[in-house]
């Protein structure tokens, strides 16, 4: 049921994540993402689709207050961890500095 357009945009987000990991600054994990949100440092938050609903609502609310974008990644936490190039699962990821990547603009367009 995933339309072609969304699939394409997901791929672009995944590919850009790799670049962000290399050139930019990120925080992985709920606790550190919340911390950076409170400090106003995050530019974008990426959530896996199997993120527990309470955590999802909490992050979305924090992002609302911090005027930060949330991207719902089309994959579960295992896939998000892989997209980050890590060997562990990651359900919640905060991008502080996109580096050379234009991931922020891509998310703005699709939002």
């Amino acid at each position, binding site marked *: 049921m995933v339309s072609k357009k969304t699939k394409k945009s997901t791929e672009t987000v995944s590919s850009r994540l790799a670049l962000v990991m290399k050139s930019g600054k990120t925080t992985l994990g709920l*606790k550190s993402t*919340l*911390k950076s949100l*409170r*400090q*106003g*440092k*995050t*530019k974008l938050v990426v959530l896996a689709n199997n993120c527990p609903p309470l955590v999802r609502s*909490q992050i979305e609310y*924090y992002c*609302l*207050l*911090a*005027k*930060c974008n949330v991207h719902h990644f089309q994959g579960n936490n295992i896939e998000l961890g892989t997209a980050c190039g890590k060997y562990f699962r990651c359900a919640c990821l905060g991008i502080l500095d996109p580096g050379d990547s234009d991931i922020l603009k891509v998310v703005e367009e699709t939002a």
Partner: protein
Amino acid sequence: MVKFLKPGKVVVVLQGKYAGRKAVIVQNYDSGTQERPYGHCVIAGIDKYPRKVTRKMSEKKVKRRSKVRAFLRVVNYNHIMPTRYTLDLADALKKVVPEEARTNLTSRKKAQKKVQQLLKERYLTGKNRWFFRKLRF
């Protein structure tokens, strides 16, 4: 991208004795201090909410039910949930709560009495209804 934990922000306490209570940030320390190397803030909140008042009640009864009991506490950012509401008492509260209230227990107790007075006055004006209503959970 915006820092939202500022004095005047209404916040819900998540842990401890005052869990579930609404509070206002009086002063926040984003980078922490020597004794507390984590982000924390001084919070003035409602310990005992004022009870519901109806038109039928006598004045004496209304007065008894409109009591607000406040608390003053230093709390880690992890243990509060910020809301979209603000309470513009921050300036008044800051004047009343001195710097030593963070560390000194007696000055905190004194400040708490003044805070209680301030909050009660605000409740009686009828503004910020949401703040003075108990959070049901």
